[in-house]
Protein backbone atom coordinates (compact mmCIF):
# COMPACT_ATOMS: atom_id res chain seq x y z
CA UNK A 1 0.00 0.00 0.00
CA UNK A 2 1.27 3.42 -0.88
CA UNK A 3 1.06 6.21 1.60
CA UNK A 4 -0.98 9.11 0.32
CA UNK A 5 0.77 12.40 0.46
CA UNK A 6 -1.17 15.24 2.00
CA UNK A 7 -0.70 18.81 0.80
CA UNK A 8 -0.22 19.94 4.40
CA UNK A 9 2.76 17.71 5.15
CA UNK A 10 4.30 18.89 1.90
CA UNK A 11 3.85 22.47 3.01
CA UNK A 12 5.47 21.81 6.39
CA UNK A 13 8.43 20.11 4.71
CA UNK A 14 8.87 23.07 2.40
CA UNK A 15 8.69 25.51 5.30
CA UNK A 16 11.33 23.55 7.21
CA UNK A 17 13.67 23.56 4.26
CA UNK A 18 13.15 27.28 3.69
CA UNK A 19 13.73 28.18 7.33
CA UNK A 20 16.85 26.05 7.54
CA UNK A 21 18.47 27.05 4.31
CA UNK A 22 17.17 30.54 3.59
CA UNK A 23 19.65 32.21 5.98
CA UNK A 24 22.52 30.48 4.22
CA UNK A 25 21.24 31.52 0.82
CA UNK A 26 20.86 35.11 2.00
CA UNK A 27 24.41 35.07 3.39
CA UNK A 28 25.66 33.75 0.06
CA UNK A 29 23.82 36.44 -1.88
CA UNK A 30 24.81 39.27 0.42
CA UNK A 31 28.45 38.23 0.38
CA UNK A 32 28.57 39.46 -3.21
CA UNK A 33 26.06 42.34 -2.85
CA UNK A 34 27.41 45.86 -3.42
CA UNK A 35 24.80 47.43 -1.11
CA UNK A 36 26.62 48.46 2.07
CA UNK A 37 23.38 48.51 4.10
CA UNK A 38 22.29 45.12 2.74
CA UNK A 39 18.74 46.20 2.10
CA UNK A 40 18.54 45.64 -1.65
CA UNK A 41 20.53 44.07 -4.48
CA UNK A 42 22.91 46.68 -5.88
CA UNK A 43 25.03 44.53 -8.18
CA UNK A 44 27.78 41.93 -7.94
CA UNK A 45 31.05 42.59 -6.15
CA UNK A 46 33.96 40.68 -4.66
CA UNK A 47 34.85 43.69 -2.53
CA UNK A 48 33.76 42.12 0.76
CA UNK A 49 35.91 39.05 0.16
CA UNK A 50 39.02 41.15 -0.44
CA UNK A 51 38.15 43.38 2.53
CA UNK A 52 37.83 40.28 4.75
CA UNK A 53 41.07 38.88 3.38
CA UNK A 54 42.90 42.07 4.22
CA UNK A 55 41.43 42.54 7.68
CA UNK A 56 44.26 42.01 10.16
CA UNK A 57 42.01 40.83 12.99
CA UNK A 58 40.39 38.26 10.72
CA UNK A 59 43.76 37.11 9.43
CA UNK A 60 45.16 36.52 12.87
CA UNK A 61 41.83 35.01 13.93
CA UNK A 62 42.03 32.42 11.17
CA UNK A 63 45.61 31.62 12.07
CA UNK A 64 44.71 31.30 15.72
CA UNK A 65 41.71 29.08 14.96
CA UNK A 66 43.83 26.82 12.78
CA UNK A 67 46.50 26.49 15.45
CA UNK A 68 43.94 25.65 18.11
CA UNK A 69 41.98 23.24 15.89
CA UNK A 70 45.07 21.36 14.74
CA UNK A 71 46.56 21.26 18.23
CA UNK A 72 43.41 20.10 20.00
CA UNK A 73 42.66 17.56 17.26
CA UNK A 74 46.14 16.03 17.44
CA UNK A 75 46.09 15.78 21.24
CA UNK A 76 42.52 14.44 21.21
CA UNK A 77 43.42 11.73 18.70
CA UNK A 78 46.43 10.57 20.70
CA UNK A 79 44.34 10.45 23.89
CA UNK A 80 41.44 8.72 22.12
CA UNK A 81 43.60 6.03 20.48
CA UNK A 82 45.54 5.23 23.64
CA UNK A 83 42.36 5.37 25.72
CA UNK A 84 40.42 3.09 23.36
CA UNK A 85 43.26 0.56 23.21
CA UNK A 86 43.47 0.49 27.00
CA UNK A 87 39.67 0.20 27.18
CA UNK A 88 39.76 -2.90 24.99
CA UNK A 89 41.78 -4.83 27.55
CA UNK A 90 40.30 -3.28 30.70
CA UNK A 91 38.06 -5.02 33.20
CA UNK A 92 34.30 -4.50 32.78
CA UNK A 93 34.31 -2.23 35.84
CA UNK A 94 37.12 -0.05 34.57
CA UNK A 95 35.39 0.10 31.20
CA UNK A 96 32.17 1.38 32.72
CA UNK A 97 34.01 4.10 34.61
CA UNK A 98 35.90 5.10 31.48
CA UNK A 99 32.70 5.22 29.41
CA UNK A 100 30.95 7.24 32.10
CA UNK A 101 33.71 9.83 32.14
CA UNK A 102 33.61 10.02 28.34
CA UNK A 103 29.85 10.57 28.14
CA UNK A 104 30.00 13.10 30.94
CA UNK A 105 32.38 15.32 28.95
CA UNK A 106 29.85 15.33 26.11
CA UNK A 107 26.68 15.71 28.18
CA UNK A 108 27.74 18.39 30.64
CA UNK A 109 27.19 21.88 29.18
CA UNK A 110 30.31 23.24 27.58
CA UNK A 111 30.00 26.43 29.56
CA UNK A 112 30.45 24.46 32.80
CA UNK A 113 33.84 23.18 31.72
CA UNK A 114 34.79 26.56 30.30
CA UNK A 115 34.04 28.35 33.57
CA UNK A 116 35.67 25.63 35.64
CA UNK A 117 38.85 25.78 33.58
CA UNK A 118 38.81 29.58 33.66
CA UNK A 119 38.60 29.53 37.47
CA UNK A 120 41.27 26.84 37.75
CA UNK A 121 43.66 28.63 35.42
CA UNK A 122 43.23 31.92 37.33
CA UNK A 123 43.79 30.12 40.60
CA UNK A 124 47.03 28.43 39.52
CA UNK A 125 47.97 31.47 37.44
CA UNK A 126 48.14 29.51 34.23
CA UNK A 127 48.15 32.14 31.43
CA UNK A 128 45.03 32.33 29.28
CA UNK A 129 45.63 32.12 25.53
CA UNK A 130 46.37 29.52 22.88
CA UNK A 131 47.44 26.69 25.22
CA UNK A 132 44.54 27.30 27.57
CA UNK A 133 42.03 27.20 24.70
CA UNK A 134 43.60 24.01 23.30
CA UNK A 135 43.26 22.33 26.71
CA UNK A 136 39.66 23.53 26.91
CA UNK A 137 38.85 22.06 23.50
CA UNK A 138 40.57 18.77 24.27
CA UNK A 139 38.15 18.24 27.16
CA UNK A 140 35.19 17.55 24.88
CA UNK A 141 36.98 16.88 21.59
CA UNK A 142 38.82 13.90 23.04
CA UNK A 143 35.48 12.50 24.20
CA UNK A 144 33.97 12.63 20.70
CA UNK A 145 37.13 11.16 19.20
CA UNK A 146 37.13 8.39 21.83
CA UNK A 147 33.57 7.35 20.96
CA UNK A 148 34.39 7.04 17.26
CA UNK A 149 37.68 5.24 17.75
CA UNK A 150 36.22 2.89 20.36
CA UNK A 151 33.65 1.81 17.80
CA UNK A 152 36.48 1.00 15.41
CA UNK A 153 38.55 -0.77 18.07
CA UNK A 154 35.61 -3.06 18.81
CA UNK A 155 35.76 -4.32 15.22
CA UNK A 156 39.47 -5.18 15.38
CA UNK A 157 40.17 -8.90 15.54
CA UNK A 158 42.68 -9.54 18.37
CA UNK A 159 43.91 -12.57 16.39
CA UNK A 160 45.44 -10.15 13.87
CA UNK A 161 47.69 -8.69 16.53
CA UNK A 162 48.52 -12.18 17.81
CA UNK A 163 49.46 -13.14 14.25
CA UNK A 164 51.70 -10.09 13.80
CA UNK A 165 53.42 -10.79 17.08
CA UNK A 166 53.80 -14.45 16.14
CA UNK A 167 55.43 -13.39 12.86
CA UNK A 168 58.12 -11.46 14.71
CA UNK A 169 56.70 -7.97 15.21
CA UNK A 170 57.46 -6.38 18.59
CA UNK A 171 54.61 -4.49 20.32
CA UNK A 172 55.44 -1.18 18.64
CA UNK A 173 55.67 -2.79 15.20
CA UNK A 174 52.38 -4.62 15.82
CA UNK A 175 50.78 -1.27 16.59
CA UNK A 176 52.24 0.42 13.52
CA UNK A 177 51.72 -2.35 10.98
CA UNK A 178 48.42 -3.86 12.11
CA UNK A 179 46.55 -1.91 14.81
CA UNK A 180 47.02 1.57 13.34
CA UNK A 181 46.01 0.63 9.77
CA UNK A 182 42.98 -1.08 11.24
CA UNK A 183 42.02 2.04 13.17
CA UNK A 184 42.79 4.50 10.39
CA UNK A 185 39.25 5.03 9.05
CA UNK A 186 38.13 5.77 12.61
CA UNK A 187 41.06 8.09 13.19
CA UNK A 188 40.33 10.07 10.02
CA UNK A 189 36.64 10.36 10.89
CA UNK A 190 37.38 11.36 14.49
CA UNK A 191 40.01 13.86 13.36
CA UNK A 192 37.63 15.59 10.96
CA UNK A 193 34.90 15.80 13.55
CA UNK A 194 37.24 17.10 16.24
CA UNK A 195 38.76 19.65 13.88
CA UNK A 196 35.34 20.97 12.88
CA UNK A 197 34.09 21.20 16.45
CA UNK A 198 37.20 23.06 17.49
CA UNK A 199 37.09 25.26 14.41
CA UNK A 200 33.65 26.73 15.14
CA UNK A 201 33.76 26.78 18.93
CA UNK A 202 32.81 30.02 20.67
CA UNK A 203 32.05 29.24 24.30
CA UNK A 204 35.29 27.63 25.48
CA UNK A 205 37.39 29.89 23.27
CA UNK A 206 35.66 33.02 24.58
CA UNK A 207 36.34 32.16 28.23
CA UNK A 208 39.95 31.05 27.79
CA UNK A 209 41.30 33.41 25.14
CA UNK A 210 42.10 36.19 27.54
CA UNK A 211 43.63 39.38 26.17
CA UNK A 212 45.57 37.64 23.42
CA UNK A 213 44.70 36.88 19.81
CA UNK A 214 41.11 35.72 19.50
CA UNK A 215 40.15 32.80 17.25
CA UNK A 216 37.86 33.48 14.29
CA UNK A 217 34.45 32.68 15.87
CA UNK A 218 35.26 35.02 18.75
CA UNK A 219 36.39 37.67 16.26
CA UNK A 220 33.09 37.31 14.39
CA UNK A 221 31.15 37.63 17.62
CA UNK A 222 32.86 40.88 18.53
CA UNK A 223 32.49 42.21 14.98
CA UNK A 224 28.69 41.92 14.96
CA UNK A 225 28.51 43.56 18.36
CA UNK A 226 29.49 46.91 16.89
CA UNK A 227 28.00 46.83 13.46
CA UNK A 228 26.95 44.21 10.98
CA UNK A 229 29.18 44.67 7.98
CA UNK A 230 28.80 42.78 4.68
CA UNK A 231 32.29 41.47 5.31
CA UNK A 232 30.82 39.01 7.81
CA UNK A 233 28.84 37.36 5.02
CA UNK A 234 32.02 36.82 3.05
CA UNK A 235 33.79 35.31 6.05
CA UNK A 236 30.79 33.07 6.70
CA UNK A 237 30.88 31.79 3.13
CA UNK A 238 34.59 31.09 3.32
CA UNK A 239 34.23 29.16 6.56
CA UNK A 240 31.40 27.18 5.03
CA UNK A 241 33.41 26.34 1.93
CA UNK A 242 36.39 25.33 4.01
CA UNK A 243 34.36 23.02 6.24
CA UNK A 244 32.56 21.36 3.33
CA UNK A 245 35.80 20.72 1.45
CA UNK A 246 37.37 19.31 4.62
CA UNK A 247 34.58 16.77 4.82
CA UNK A 248 34.81 16.02 1.12
CA UNK A 249 38.53 15.29 1.49
CA UNK A 250 37.85 13.19 4.56
CA UNK A 251 35.17 11.21 2.77
CA UNK A 252 37.46 10.49 -0.16
CA UNK A 253 40.26 9.54 2.23
CA UNK A 254 38.07 7.06 4.10
CA UNK A 255 36.64 5.45 0.96
CA UNK A 256 40.09 5.17 -0.62
CA UNK A 257 41.52 3.79 2.60
CA UNK A 258 42.54 0.45 1.09
CA UNK A 259 45.19 1.98 -1.09
CA UNK A 260 45.58 5.11 1.00
CA UNK A 261 46.52 3.33 4.21
CA UNK A 262 49.68 1.81 2.88
CA UNK A 263 50.91 5.03 1.33
CA UNK A 264 49.95 7.14 4.32
CA UNK A 265 51.92 4.88 6.62
CA UNK A 266 54.71 4.24 4.12
CA UNK A 267 54.41 0.51 4.56
CA UNK A 268 57.00 -1.40 2.59
CA UNK A 269 55.84 -2.77 -0.73
CA UNK A 270 56.90 -6.07 -2.15
CA UNK A 271 56.39 -6.29 -5.89
CA UNK A 272 56.75 -9.56 -7.70
Amino acid at each position, binding site marked *: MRLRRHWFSGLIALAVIVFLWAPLVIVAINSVNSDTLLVSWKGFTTHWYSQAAHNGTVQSGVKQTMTIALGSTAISLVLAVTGALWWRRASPRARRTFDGLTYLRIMLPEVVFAVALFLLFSKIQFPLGTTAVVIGHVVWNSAYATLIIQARVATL*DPALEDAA*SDLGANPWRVFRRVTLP*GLLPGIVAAGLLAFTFSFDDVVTSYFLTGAGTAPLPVVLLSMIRFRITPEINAIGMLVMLFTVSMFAIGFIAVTQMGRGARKALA*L*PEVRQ
Partner: protein
Amino acid sequence: METGAVRLQALRKTFGDLVAVQSLDLDIPEGGFFSLIGPSGCGKTTTLRMVAGLEHPDSGTIEVGGEDITRRPPYRRPVNTVFQSYALFPHLDVADNVAFGLIEERRPKAEIRERVAEMLALVQLTGRERSKPSQLSGGQQQRVALARALVKHPKVLLLDEPLGALDLKLRKELQGQLKAVQRRVGITFMYVTHDQEEAFSMSDRVAVMHEGRLEQVGTPEDVYRQPATLFTADFVGASNRTEAAVKQALGEGRYTLKSGSGYDVRARGPEGLATGAAVTLIVRPESLRLGDEGWPATITDVSYVGPAKHLELETQELGRLRATVGGGEPAAVGDRVNVSWPAEAAWIVGER
Protein backbone atom coordinates in the same frame (compact mmCIF):
# COMPACT_ATOMS: atom_id res chain seq x y z
CA MET B 1 69.11 -39.39 22.24
CA GLU B 2 68.20 -36.61 19.82
CA THR B 3 66.73 -33.43 21.24
CA GLY B 4 63.01 -33.18 20.59
CA ALA B 5 61.55 -30.31 18.63
CA VAL B 6 59.30 -29.35 21.52
CA ARG B 7 59.60 -30.38 25.14
CA LEU B 8 56.99 -29.34 27.66
CA GLN B 9 57.67 -29.96 31.33
CA ALA B 10 55.12 -29.64 34.12
CA LEU B 11 53.30 -27.00 32.13
CA ARG B 12 50.32 -25.51 33.93
CA LYS B 13 47.87 -22.77 33.06
CA THR B 14 44.78 -21.50 34.84
CA PHE B 15 42.23 -18.85 33.90
CA GLY B 16 40.82 -17.71 37.22
CA ASP B 17 39.29 -20.81 38.81
CA LEU B 18 39.44 -22.78 35.60
CA VAL B 19 42.42 -25.08 35.20
CA ALA B 20 43.02 -25.19 31.44
CA VAL B 21 46.21 -27.23 31.49
CA GLN B 22 47.43 -29.16 34.52
CA SER B 23 51.01 -30.28 34.72
CA LEU B 24 51.62 -31.32 31.15
CA ASP B 25 54.74 -33.25 30.15
CA LEU B 26 55.17 -33.78 26.45
CA ASP B 27 57.99 -34.53 24.02
CA ILE B 28 57.47 -33.91 20.36
CA PRO B 29 60.09 -35.51 18.13
CA GLU B 30 61.69 -33.50 15.37
CA GLY B 31 60.53 -33.42 11.78
CA GLY B 32 57.21 -35.19 12.13
CA PHE B 33 53.54 -34.43 12.02
CA PHE B 34 52.31 -34.35 15.61
CA SER B 35 48.68 -33.85 16.57
CA LEU B 36 47.14 -32.82 19.85
CA ILE B 37 43.56 -34.04 19.94
CA GLY B 38 40.75 -33.83 22.43
CA PRO B 39 37.24 -32.46 22.88
CA SER B 40 36.73 -28.70 23.05
CA GLY B 41 37.87 -27.24 26.34
CA CYS B 42 40.47 -29.97 26.95
CA GLY B 43 43.32 -27.44 26.92
CA LYS B 44 44.84 -28.31 23.55
CA THR B 45 44.57 -24.81 22.09
CA THR B 46 45.85 -23.27 25.32
CA THR B 47 48.86 -25.59 25.14
CA LEU B 48 49.52 -24.52 21.55
CA ARG B 49 49.20 -20.85 22.44
CA MET B 50 51.67 -21.29 25.28
CA VAL B 51 54.19 -22.75 22.83
CA ALA B 52 53.53 -19.75 20.55
CA GLY B 53 54.00 -17.39 23.51
CA LEU B 54 50.50 -15.95 23.25
CA GLU B 55 49.60 -17.30 26.70
CA HIS B 56 51.92 -17.36 29.69
CA PRO B 57 52.08 -20.58 31.68
CA ASP B 58 51.58 -20.33 35.46
CA SER B 59 54.46 -22.75 35.87
CA GLY B 60 56.54 -25.25 33.95
CA THR B 61 58.95 -24.88 31.05
CA ILE B 62 58.77 -24.89 27.28
CA GLU B 63 61.77 -25.92 25.22
CA VAL B 64 62.01 -25.67 21.46
CA GLY B 65 65.03 -27.22 19.77
CA GLY B 66 66.71 -27.69 23.15
CA GLU B 67 66.36 -24.02 24.10
CA ASP B 68 64.23 -22.83 27.02
CA ILE B 69 61.84 -20.24 25.59
CA THR B 70 59.35 -20.13 28.46
CA ARG B 71 60.03 -16.45 29.21
CA ARG B 72 60.48 -15.25 25.65
CA PRO B 73 57.86 -13.01 24.00
CA PRO B 74 56.12 -14.48 20.92
CA TYR B 75 58.11 -12.33 18.50
CA ARG B 76 61.38 -13.90 19.64
CA ARG B 77 60.35 -17.54 19.40
CA PRO B 78 61.43 -19.86 16.57
CA VAL B 79 57.85 -20.98 16.00
CA ASN B 80 55.05 -19.71 13.78
CA THR B 81 51.32 -20.27 13.90
CA VAL B 82 48.50 -20.92 11.47
CA PHE B 83 45.45 -19.52 13.25
CA GLN B 84 42.00 -21.02 13.27
CA SER B 85 40.50 -17.85 11.78
CA TYR B 86 43.60 -17.48 9.54
CA ALA B 87 44.05 -13.92 10.87
CA LEU B 88 45.18 -12.60 7.50
CA PHE B 89 45.87 -8.87 7.51
CA PRO B 90 42.90 -7.38 5.64
CA HIS B 91 44.75 -4.22 4.57
CA LEU B 92 47.59 -6.16 2.93
CA ASP B 93 47.44 -8.27 -0.22
CA VAL B 94 48.53 -11.90 -0.44
CA ALA B 95 52.20 -11.18 -1.18
CA ASP B 96 52.46 -8.59 1.60
CA ASN B 97 50.78 -10.94 4.05
CA VAL B 98 53.34 -13.64 3.28
CA ALA B 99 56.17 -11.09 3.37
CA PHE B 100 55.07 -9.71 6.76
CA GLY B 101 57.35 -11.86 8.90
CA LEU B 102 60.35 -11.49 6.58
CA ILE B 103 60.04 -7.69 6.67
CA GLU B 104 60.20 -7.94 10.47
CA GLU B 105 63.44 -9.91 10.07
CA ARG B 106 64.76 -7.05 7.91
CA ARG B 107 65.62 -9.38 5.06
CA PRO B 108 66.86 -7.82 1.83
CA LYS B 109 64.09 -7.03 -0.64
CA ALA B 110 65.36 -9.43 -3.29
CA GLU B 111 65.41 -12.31 -0.82
CA ILE B 112 61.91 -11.48 0.42
CA ARG B 113 60.59 -11.42 -3.14
CA GLU B 114 62.19 -14.76 -3.89
CA ARG B 115 61.02 -16.52 -0.74
CA VAL B 116 57.48 -15.18 -1.06
CA ALA B 117 57.28 -16.42 -4.65
CA GLU B 118 58.67 -19.80 -3.62
CA MET B 119 56.11 -20.14 -0.81
CA LEU B 120 53.19 -19.10 -2.98
CA ALA B 121 54.28 -21.72 -5.50
CA LEU B 122 54.36 -24.32 -2.71
CA VAL B 123 50.77 -23.56 -1.72
CA GLN B 124 49.69 -23.15 -5.35
CA LEU B 125 48.77 -19.49 -5.18
CA THR B 126 51.15 -18.10 -7.77
CA GLY B 127 49.32 -15.38 -9.67
CA ARG B 128 47.22 -14.26 -6.69
CA GLU B 129 49.94 -12.03 -5.20
CA ARG B 130 47.96 -8.82 -5.54
CA SER B 131 44.62 -10.20 -4.30
CA LYS B 132 43.25 -9.03 -0.98
CA PRO B 133 42.35 -11.75 1.54
CA SER B 134 38.67 -10.82 1.18
CA GLN B 135 38.82 -11.78 -2.50
CA LEU B 136 39.97 -15.33 -1.74
CA SER B 137 37.96 -18.44 -0.94
CA GLY B 138 38.25 -20.06 2.48
CA GLY B 139 40.64 -22.72 1.21
CA GLN B 140 42.85 -20.13 -0.47
CA GLN B 141 42.93 -17.99 2.68
CA GLN B 142 43.97 -21.05 4.63
CA ARG B 143 46.87 -21.61 2.22
CA VAL B 144 47.98 -17.97 2.49
CA ALA B 145 48.03 -18.39 6.28
CA LEU B 146 50.13 -21.53 5.86
CA ALA B 147 52.56 -19.80 3.48
CA ARG B 148 52.85 -16.77 5.75
CA ALA B 149 53.87 -18.95 8.70
CA LEU B 150 56.12 -21.35 6.75
CA VAL B 151 58.07 -18.66 4.93
CA LYS B 152 59.88 -17.88 8.18
CA HIS B 153 61.31 -21.42 8.30
CA PRO B 154 60.20 -21.96 11.89
CA LYS B 155 61.62 -24.82 13.95
CA VAL B 156 58.04 -25.81 14.68
CA LEU B 157 54.86 -24.88 12.85
CA LEU B 158 51.84 -24.59 15.12
CA LEU B 159 48.43 -25.19 13.55
CA ASP B 160 45.29 -24.37 15.52
CA GLU B 161 42.38 -26.24 13.89
CA PRO B 162 43.25 -24.64 10.56
CA LEU B 163 40.64 -26.63 8.64
CA GLY B 164 37.79 -26.20 11.11
CA ALA B 165 35.93 -23.56 9.11
CA LEU B 166 35.95 -25.43 5.80
CA ASP B 167 33.43 -27.85 4.35
CA LEU B 168 34.11 -31.58 4.44
CA LYS B 169 35.27 -32.09 0.85
CA LEU B 170 37.70 -29.17 0.92
CA ARG B 171 38.92 -30.30 4.32
CA LYS B 172 39.83 -33.74 2.98
CA GLU B 173 41.65 -32.17 0.06
CA LEU B 174 43.61 -29.79 2.27
CA GLN B 175 44.49 -32.57 4.71
CA GLY B 176 46.32 -34.28 1.87
CA GLN B 177 48.04 -31.03 0.91
CA LEU B 178 49.08 -30.24 4.48
CA LYS B 179 50.62 -33.67 4.88
CA ALA B 180 52.43 -33.34 1.55
CA VAL B 181 53.75 -29.88 2.50
CA GLN B 182 55.01 -31.21 5.82
CA ARG B 183 56.87 -34.08 4.11
CA ARG B 184 58.39 -31.65 1.63
CA VAL B 185 59.62 -28.95 4.01
CA GLY B 186 60.47 -31.36 6.84
CA ILE B 187 59.46 -28.83 9.51
CA THR B 188 57.88 -30.24 12.69
CA PHE B 189 54.13 -29.66 12.62
CA MET B 190 52.22 -29.39 15.88
CA TYR B 191 48.60 -29.68 14.93
CA VAL B 192 45.58 -29.12 17.15
CA THR B 193 42.17 -30.54 16.30
CA HIS B 194 39.09 -32.07 17.88
CA ASP B 195 38.64 -34.30 14.83
CA GLN B 196 40.43 -37.60 15.52
CA GLU B 197 39.95 -38.86 11.98
CA GLU B 198 41.64 -35.75 10.60
CA ALA B 199 44.50 -36.16 13.07
CA PHE B 200 44.89 -39.88 12.32
CA SER B 201 44.99 -39.38 8.56
CA MET B 202 47.85 -36.87 8.75
CA SER B 203 49.87 -37.57 11.87
CA ASP B 204 52.92 -39.61 12.68
CA ARG B 205 52.06 -39.31 16.35
CA VAL B 206 49.08 -38.08 18.29
CA ALA B 207 48.51 -37.02 21.88
CA VAL B 208 45.05 -37.27 23.38
CA MET B 209 44.13 -34.59 25.91
CA HIS B 210 41.25 -34.56 28.35
CA GLU B 211 40.43 -31.97 31.03
CA GLY B 212 43.87 -30.40 30.84
CA ARG B 213 45.71 -33.70 31.13
CA LEU B 214 47.47 -35.93 28.66
CA GLU B 215 45.69 -39.26 28.31
CA GLN B 216 47.99 -40.98 25.86
CA VAL B 217 50.73 -40.30 23.31
CA GLY B 218 51.58 -42.62 20.45
CA THR B 219 51.12 -43.46 16.81
CA PRO B 220 47.52 -43.27 15.58
CA GLU B 221 47.51 -47.07 15.42
CA ASP B 222 48.72 -47.45 19.02
CA VAL B 223 46.16 -45.02 20.29
CA TYR B 224 43.35 -46.66 18.36
CA ARG B 225 44.24 -50.28 18.96
CA GLN B 226 45.79 -50.03 22.40
CA PRO B 227 44.05 -47.18 24.21
CA ALA B 228 45.44 -46.58 27.69
CA THR B 229 42.24 -45.17 29.13
CA LEU B 230 38.52 -45.53 28.58
CA PHE B 231 38.37 -41.88 27.58
CA THR B 232 40.86 -42.41 24.78
CA ALA B 233 39.14 -45.59 23.68
CA ASP B 234 35.87 -43.71 23.29
CA PHE B 235 37.31 -40.54 21.85
CA VAL B 236 39.10 -42.18 18.97
CA GLY B 237 36.30 -44.51 17.91
CA ALA B 238 33.40 -46.76 18.77
CA SER B 239 34.07 -49.83 20.88
CA ASN B 240 32.42 -52.79 22.53
CA ARG B 241 33.17 -52.88 26.22
CA THR B 242 32.67 -55.35 28.91
CA GLU B 243 33.77 -55.27 32.50
CA ALA B 244 36.13 -58.04 33.55
CA ALA B 245 38.77 -59.07 36.06
CA VAL B 246 42.28 -60.35 35.39
CA LYS B 247 42.32 -64.09 36.00
CA GLN B 248 45.82 -64.96 34.94
CA ALA B 249 48.75 -63.13 33.40
CA LEU B 250 50.32 -65.16 30.60
CA GLY B 251 53.33 -62.85 30.08
CA GLU B 252 54.24 -60.44 27.26
CA GLY B 253 51.02 -58.53 27.73
CA ARG B 254 48.76 -61.55 27.36
CA TYR B 255 46.08 -62.33 29.88
CA THR B 256 43.12 -64.49 30.60
CA LEU B 257 40.14 -62.52 31.91
CA LYS B 258 37.00 -63.51 33.68
CA SER B 259 34.21 -61.45 32.17
CA GLY B 260 31.37 -60.02 34.24
CA SER B 261 29.06 -62.78 33.10
CA GLY B 262 31.55 -65.43 34.17
CA TYR B 263 33.20 -66.48 30.88
CA ASP B 264 36.91 -66.76 30.31
CA VAL B 265 38.30 -64.54 27.57
CA ARG B 266 41.84 -64.16 26.28
CA ALA B 267 43.09 -60.69 25.49
CA ARG B 268 46.14 -58.48 25.26
CA GLY B 269 46.77 -55.54 27.50
CA PRO B 270 49.43 -53.31 29.06
CA GLU B 271 52.19 -55.16 30.95
CA GLY B 272 51.99 -55.49 34.70
CA LEU B 273 48.30 -55.88 35.40
CA ALA B 274 47.84 -57.69 38.69
CA THR B 275 45.72 -60.79 39.03
CA GLY B 276 42.26 -59.82 40.21
CA ALA B 277 42.53 -56.26 38.87
CA ALA B 278 39.28 -54.67 37.74
CA VAL B 279 39.58 -53.94 34.04
CA THR B 280 37.53 -53.25 30.93
CA LEU B 281 37.73 -55.39 27.83
CA ILE B 282 37.51 -53.53 24.55
CA VAL B 283 36.87 -54.87 21.05
CA ARG B 284 36.48 -52.50 18.10
CA PRO B 285 33.32 -53.13 16.01
CA GLU B 286 35.29 -53.84 12.83
CA SER B 287 37.21 -56.64 14.64
CA LEU B 288 34.07 -58.67 15.22
CA ARG B 289 33.54 -61.54 12.83
CA LEU B 290 30.26 -63.17 11.94
CA GLY B 291 30.48 -66.86 11.13
CA ASP B 292 29.94 -70.34 12.40
CA GLU B 293 32.13 -70.04 15.49
CA GLY B 294 31.77 -67.99 18.60
CA TRP B 295 28.96 -66.61 20.71
CA PRO B 296 25.47 -67.02 19.35
CA ALA B 297 23.88 -63.66 18.56
CA THR B 298 20.83 -62.11 16.94
CA ILE B 299 21.09 -59.09 14.64
CA THR B 300 18.76 -56.41 16.01
CA ASP B 301 19.65 -53.46 13.76
CA VAL B 302 21.43 -52.84 10.46
CA SER B 303 22.49 -49.47 9.09
CA TYR B 304 24.00 -49.46 5.64
CA VAL B 305 26.51 -46.66 4.92
CA GLY B 306 27.87 -47.77 1.54
CA PRO B 307 31.29 -49.24 2.12
CA ALA B 308 30.19 -50.84 5.38
CA LYS B 309 27.25 -52.06 7.40
CA HIS B 310 26.92 -51.15 11.08
CA LEU B 311 25.17 -53.90 12.99
CA GLU B 312 23.74 -54.20 16.44
CA LEU B 313 23.81 -57.67 17.94
CA GLU B 314 22.22 -59.13 21.01
CA THR B 315 24.04 -61.93 22.81
CA GLN B 316 23.18 -63.73 25.96
CA GLU B 317 26.73 -63.92 27.28
CA LEU B 318 28.12 -60.49 26.30
CA GLY B 319 25.00 -58.35 26.10
CA ARG B 320 24.63 -55.85 23.28
CA LEU B 321 27.46 -55.63 20.71
CA ARG B 322 28.23 -53.38 17.81
CA ALA B 323 29.86 -54.79 14.69
CA THR B 324 31.00 -53.24 11.44
CA VAL B 325 31.15 -55.54 8.42
CA GLY B 326 31.68 -55.00 4.70
CA GLY B 327 28.85 -53.39 2.79
CA GLY B 328 28.39 -56.53 0.74
CA GLU B 329 27.96 -58.93 3.66
CA PRO B 330 24.56 -60.56 3.87
CA ALA B 331 23.19 -59.39 7.20
CA ALA B 332 19.60 -58.61 7.99
CA VAL B 333 17.64 -57.83 11.11
CA GLY B 334 16.60 -61.04 12.84
CA ASP B 335 19.42 -63.19 11.43
CA ARG B 336 20.94 -65.59 13.93
CA VAL B 337 24.72 -65.68 13.68
CA ASN B 338 27.78 -66.54 15.71
CA VAL B 339 30.13 -63.75 16.65
CA SER B 340 33.81 -64.02 17.47
CA TRP B 341 37.02 -61.97 17.29
CA PRO B 342 40.70 -62.77 16.89
CA ALA B 343 42.46 -62.88 20.27
CA GLU B 344 44.82 -60.04 19.34
CA ALA B 345 41.86 -57.71 18.68
CA ALA B 346 40.71 -57.82 22.29
CA TRP B 347 42.40 -55.11 24.34
CA ILE B 348 42.41 -54.54 28.06
CA VAL B 349 42.11 -51.09 29.61
CA GLY B 350 43.26 -51.10 33.21
CA GLU B 351 40.27 -49.19 34.58
CA ARG B 352 36.52 -49.44 34.74
